[in-house]
C-alpha cells in the first residue's frame, strides 16, 4: 500500500480551480519530487497533503487524500495530529526567535512527546543529528537560532520538523534560497532521510529533482501531466509536454 494515495483531487481558491483531478500514489520511504512552471499547482498540491491550505480562507478540496489508508479530509480529522505526522519545511527558513535548542524542543514539548528532561535532550539531539546539524551546533545550543547561516537555519527547520517524529516530510523548495554548498547539504540530507521518512519535495531546480528523487511528478496548469521514476522522466519521458519542460523549451 502507498504511504500517500490521492484520488481525483480538485482544489479551489474561491471560484478559481487550482488543481484538476490529481491522482497519485506516493510509496513509503521514497523521495518524490514535484516539478513544473510557477503557478502550476505543485505547491498547492503539496499543501493539500497536510491540509496546510485550510489556513487560507475560501479554499476547498474535493477528492480523496489517504495517508496509510486514512482519509485526511474526513470531517473529524485531528488536523494538528495530521500535521505532526506530515511535517513541513518551507522555502524560507523560519526559525522561532528562540535558542537553537528551544526551536527543536518546542514541538516535542507542546505535543508532550518526551517523558523527562533527559528524554527531551535526547530527542533534540537526535533531531539535530538527523538534520545533519548536530556537529555544528552542539556547543552553542542555547544561542539564538538567528545566529546560524541560511543553510543551517534551514536544517534547523528540518530538525524542528523531524523532532515530532513525522512519517512524511513535505519540503517546499527547501534549498532555493541557499548557496550551492548549503544546497548540497540539504540534498544529501534528503537522500539520507528517506531511510526513515517519506519525502515529498517541490523544486524549481530540475537537476535537484534528478539528483534526490526516486520519482518525479510534473504539473502544469493545475494538472498532473506525468508521474514516473525519475530516471525515466529525465532520460525518456512519456509526455511531450514533460520533455519540453525539462529540456527548457518553455518555462
Amino acid at each position, binding site marked *: 500500500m502507498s504511504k500517500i494515495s490521492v484520488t481525483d483531487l480538485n482544489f479551489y481558491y474561491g471560484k478559481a480551480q487550482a488543481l484538476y483531478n490529481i491522482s497519485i500514489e506516493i510509496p513509503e520511504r521514497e523521495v518524490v519530487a514535484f516539478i513544473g512552471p510557477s503557478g502550476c499547482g505543485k505547491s498547492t498540491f503539496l499543501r493539500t497533503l497536510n491540509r496546510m491550505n485550510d489556513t487560507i480562507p475560501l479554499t476547498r478540496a474535493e477528492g480523496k487524500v489517504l495517508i496509510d489508508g486514512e482519509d485526511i479530509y474526513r470531517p473529524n480529522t485531528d488536523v494538528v495530529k495530521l500535521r505532526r505526522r506530515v511535517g513541513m519545511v518551507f522555502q524560507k527558513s523560519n526559525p522561532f526567535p528562540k535558542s537553537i535548542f528551544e526551536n527543536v524542543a518546542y514541538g516535542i514539548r507542546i505535543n508532550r512527546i518526551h517523558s523527562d528532561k533527559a528524554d527531551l535532550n535526547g530527542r533534540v539531539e537526535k533531531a539535530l543529528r538527523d538534520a545533519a546539524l548536530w556537529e555544528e551546533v552542539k556547543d552553542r545550543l542555547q544561542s539564538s537560532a538567528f545566529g546560524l547561516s541560511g543553510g543551517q537555519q534551514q536544517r534547523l527547520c528540518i530538525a524542528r520538523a523531524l523532532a515530532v517524529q513525522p512519517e512524511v516530510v513535505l519540503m517546499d523548495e527547501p534549498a532555493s534560497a541557499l548557496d550551492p554548498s548549503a544546497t548540497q547539504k540539504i540534498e544529501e540530507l534528503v537522500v539520507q532521510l528517506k531511510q526513515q521518512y517519506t519525502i515529498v519535495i517541490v523544486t524549481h531546480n*530540475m537537476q535537484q529533482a*534528478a539528483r534526490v528523487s526516486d520519482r518525479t511528478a510534473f504539473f502544469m496548469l493545475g494538472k498532473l501531466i506525468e508521474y514516473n521514476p525519475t530516471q525515466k522522466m*529525465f*532520460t*525518456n519521458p512519456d509526455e511531450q509536454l*514533460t520533455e519540453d519542460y525539462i*529540456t527548457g523549451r*518553455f518555462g
Partner: protein
Amino acid sequence: METRIIDQQLGVLRDKILLLGGATEAAVTRAMDSLINRDSELAKRVLDEDTIINQMELDIDRMSIEILALQQPAAHDLRFVISVAKITPVLERIADHASNIAESVLVLNSQPEVRQFVEFRLMSTTASEMLQAALDAFTAEDSQVSREVIKRDKEIDENYKKVFNQLIEMMIDDPSTTTSAAHLLFVAKHLERIGDYVKDICELNVYLREAVFIKHGSRT
C-alpha cells in the same frame, strides 16, 4: 517556440559527427578502391587523412563534454549527446580499420598480383552500404532502418568465412602467395570488424530514438 542556447550547440555537434561520418565512409571506400585497383597513392591518402579523423574525434569529445557540463541536457537532448559521444569513437575505429587496410594495400602492391575473390568485393560493398545506411539512419533517427542494417552484418560474416577458406586454400596451393594471402586475410578481418562497428552505431541509433539499449540482447 523560443530557441534555446543548447539547440545551436546540438546543431554544431550534429554537423561535426556527420562530417566525421562522411570522412570515415570515404576512408573505407578509398581503402577498398586502393586494394581493388592496386592504387598505392590512394592508400597513402587514406593513411594521411587518418590524422584529420583523429582530430575530429577529439573535437567532438570536447564539445560533448562541454554540453553535458554546461547545458545539462535531459531527455532527447541527453540521448543525442550520449549517442554522439558513443558513436564518435566507433567511427574513429572504423577509420583505423580503413587505415590498416591501406597499410596492407601498400604491402600487397609490392607483391605480384594474386587472384581476387568475388566475396571480397561483396564484403566491401556491404560494409560501405551498411555504414552509409547507419549514418543516414542516425540523421533521420530511424530505428527501423537501423534494425535492418544490424541484420546485414551476417552477410559480411558469411563472406568473411568464405574469403578466409579461399585464402587458406590459396596459400596451400601456391606458397609463393603466402605474404599477399596473409595481408588479404587481415583486410578481410578488418572488413568483418567494420561490420561489427556499424552494428554498434545502429544500436545507438535505436537508443537515440527509443531510449532502449538493444546491445547484448538487452531490451531496456
